[in-house]
């Protein structure tokens, strides 16, 4: 039946509108996909060139904003001295330690509260109260507790990371479709299998969103902590530079912080794309 309809309608259609040749199917946009991409990179490049130009002409005082080339040169010198990489290393270590500690605590608490009404009654209100405090307000107290040691900075990062992970874990677990849990009961899954196969994977999109947010918070916490009190790390590099009015070094540290932020966000994106290949919102480039 449907074949008959097709064989009837095709020639009619073809006679009305002649089959378009492939070359003129669409009017091309002004620039095309590549053109727009190039343009989007061209703008920051031109701004950078302008910055360099004004700095060289002396319109921009080097005390205010040194030329990008000068910043690059400074980076090179600091690498040669060995200071830049060791400072970068100690900053990264702090961030990772804080992220792992805060992330674990947030995840464990979130899982408990997500699963158990009792845990929720015991923990959730207190956690929410502490969360209401802007964690940076605790900074003076942290300095009193830990001095300028590693502990204080790791603590501050942990504190900042913990809450987004906690909240998103609870939310993720609560959002699981109850019909899937019913299915698991009908099939006779053990509690362990239920958690492993249904609850945690179902909560993962929400948890990963928490991770991405937590990464940004981690860097913010680290910048603040290192700027206030430290004797190693990118923040201390910036503080030392401030005393000697080395704006080139200061600009360099800002660029490094920005770079780390971009890289960590990219890592989080890759994680999402790999772990959430099943999810329609993340599946643009999956094979299937």
């Amino acid at each position, binding site marked *: 039946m449907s074949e008959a309809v097709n064989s009837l309608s095709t020639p009619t259609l073809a006679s009305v509108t002649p089959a378009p040749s492939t070359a003129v199917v669409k009017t091309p946009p002004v620039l095309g996909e590549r053109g727009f991409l190039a343009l989007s990179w061209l703008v920051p490049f031109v701004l950078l060139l302008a910055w360099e130009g004004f700095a060289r002409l002396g319109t921009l005082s080097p005390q205010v904003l040194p030329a990008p080339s000068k910043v690059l040169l400074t980076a090179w010198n600091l690498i040669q001295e060995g200071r830049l990489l060791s400072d970068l290393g100690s900053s990264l270590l702090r961030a990772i330690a804080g992220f792992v500690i805060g992330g674990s605590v947030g995840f464990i608490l979130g899982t408990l509260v997500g699963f158990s009404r009792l845990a929720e009654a015991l923990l959730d209100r207190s956690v929410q109260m502490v969360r209401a405090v802007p964690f940076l307000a605790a900074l003076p107290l942290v300095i009193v507790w830990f001095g300028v040691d590693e502990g204080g900075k790791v603590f501050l990062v942990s504190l900042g990371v913990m809450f987004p992970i906690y909240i998103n874990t609870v939310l993720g677990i609560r959002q699981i479709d109850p*019909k*899937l849990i*019913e*299915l*698991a*009961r*009908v*099939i*006779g*899954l053990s509690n362990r*299998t239920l958690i492993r*196969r*249904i609850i945690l*994977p*179902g909560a*993962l999109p929400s948890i990963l969103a928490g991770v991405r947010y937590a990464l940004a918070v981690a860097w913010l916490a680290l910048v603040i902590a290192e700027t206030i009190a430290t004797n190693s790390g990118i923040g201390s590099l910036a503080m030392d530079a401030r005393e000697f009015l080395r704006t080139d070094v200061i600009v360099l540290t800002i660029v490094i912080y920005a770079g780390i932020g971009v890289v960590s966000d990219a890592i989080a994106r890759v994680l999402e794309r790999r772990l*959430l*290949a*099943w*999810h*329609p919102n993340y*599946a643009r480039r999956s094979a*299937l």
Partner: protein
Amino acid sequence: MTTHTTTHEIESPAVSVHGLRRRYGERTVISGLSLQIARGEFVALLGESGCGKTTLLRALSGLDAIDGGRIDGPKLPAVVFQEPRLIPWDPLWRNVSLGLDDRSGKPLARAALEEVGLGDRIDDWPRNLSGGQAQRVALARALVREPRLLLLDEPFAALDALTRIRMHALVRQLVARHRPGVLLVTHDVDEAILLADRVLVMRAGAIAGEYVVSHEAGRSRAHPEAQELREHLLVELGAAVE
């Protein structure tokens, strides 16, 4: 239970229910219901909304506790719900083998998916399936366990008419091959006559009528016996049109 054919009575029943009672608070939903389904027998359960069909099915599936009576049957019958309830983050074969041993699960899942005509999609994600395909995966997931009892809770209600016709043929074929006892809860009188060996009408928490469908009547809607049964069932359900 003396009405249906003798072939079913040789084997032990897939499930037998004696004097089942189920209450929600003060309200009695099922009162003293008895029912037996033989292995390989296809029973359809018709009834208006709220008559206790779904409650009966949930009790049989072990999802809800019962307040009285006895259910002798498998602890974990296979259930197909109105929605496919596939796990979106598992590829099809992992959905089908859910709850099976990881190593033996994949070949079993592959065979089950081949049976429902999706053998080439075992690594695909559920989001890429149409409604009918997803419901076929749910059928494969139910049958991969070779259940003694298969409970179908209006599994075709959400499908379009053509897909539903194809699903009817597939279910018939699968049930003939695997021979579980089947209880199909449905609103659709034609579907019940077409698929079932026996049609039960449920009213106010009890079985109000029981009809054996002859082989010929189940074959064709135009068969006079099928038409007569259809009229009769519609009257029973209070939906007859003058």
